[in-house]
């Protein structure tokens, strides 16, 4: 385990949810911090949340009665994406951290590659396009992703309902559906590493577009690489760093960097042009 990344994830989850009093009182934070979109998936109705969820805010604009182009929210997404890409997922996202903690729980079946895994990765792009953009644009006041899918929101609902009997009394069919989705994600986390990030998260889909050009990225030194395949074997996101170290699926966990026996993989903001592996094999 990378203790440095674990510490950053824990601190980030705490910063995203710094209104600790809210967990005890069941009241959400209403201060000025909620003007600002946070980088990770963190429901703004979570009693601890001190910032605004970027996906929730984006849908708020798109599903408005009058169309408003979401300059502000898109600005945050592009800014975070350009600097960090999916390092946001690997280091900063509280829901990603929650999934990783669940995955650490011992369970008889731990499986990261199975038939259909590759195809399922495309679902998050469909979720982004349909549930976050197209359907909210077509049906006013209905943030489809938040309403029907987001498990972070369901967790918030549970945390609020514990304290609020009025809210508890209103929970009905939609909550049951969302609780089912949350249960599937939780059980999925016991078996698969970060299933929500891999298959469903629209925020991960957005940040994935930036992975190739983000300031924080990976490089493979093809001169050093001995093609042992260890990096691919240890990658829990199913990426082969030798083929594509800046794949949209890479969350920059750094497992491949730590496990490379010849230090051929580098991660950070200082690395320049690396030789492509194909160039090396041609030269040989």
């Amino acid at each position: 385990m990378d203790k440095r990344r674990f510490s950053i994830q824990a601190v980030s989850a705490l910063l995203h949810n710094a209104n600790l009093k809210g967990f005890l009182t069941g009241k959400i934070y209403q201060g000025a911090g909620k003007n600002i979109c946070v980088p990770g998936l963190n429901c703004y109705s979570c009693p601890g949340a001190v910032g605004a969820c970027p996906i929730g805010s984006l849908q708020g604009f798109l599903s408005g009665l009058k169309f408003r182009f979401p300059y502000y929210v898109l600005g945050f997404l592009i800014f975070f994406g350009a600097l960090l890409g999916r390092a946001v997922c690997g280091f900063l996202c509280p829901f990603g951290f929650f999934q990783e903690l669940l995955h650490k729980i011992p369970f008889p079946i731990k499986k990261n590659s199975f038939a259909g895994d590759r195809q399922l990765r495309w679902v998050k792009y469909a979720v982004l396009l349909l549930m976050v953009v197209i359907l909210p644009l077509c049906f006013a006041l209905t943030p489809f992703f938040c309403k029907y899918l987001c498990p972070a929101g369901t967790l918030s609902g549970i945390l609020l309902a514990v304290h609020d009997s009025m809210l508890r009394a209103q929970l009905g069919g939609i909550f049951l559906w969302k609780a089912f989705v949350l249960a599937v994600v939780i059980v999925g986390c016991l078996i698969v590493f970060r299933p929500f990030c891999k298959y469903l998260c629209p925020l991960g889909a957005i940040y994935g577009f930036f992975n190739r050009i983000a300031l924080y990225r990976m490089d493979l030194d093809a001169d050093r690489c001995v093609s042992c395949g260890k990096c691919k074997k240890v990658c829990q996101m199913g990426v082969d760093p030798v083929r594509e170290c800046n794949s949209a699926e890479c969350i920059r966990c750094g497992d491949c960097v730590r496990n490379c026996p010849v230090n051929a993989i580098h991660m950070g903001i200082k690395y320049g042009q690396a030789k492509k592996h194909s160039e090396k094999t041609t030269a040989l």
Partner: protein
Amino acid sequence: MKRNIPCMLLASAGVVLIGIGIALGQPGQVLMKAVRICMECVGIG
């Protein structure tokens, strides 16, 4: 350093978009939504 140019341009574009959003009063709209319990998010609908 050349490899960092596209991301710096994009990051700058992000800052510009945030600036346009601020000029249009969009932070207030984000705040209005975020300070109330989102019924859809928590599963009430």
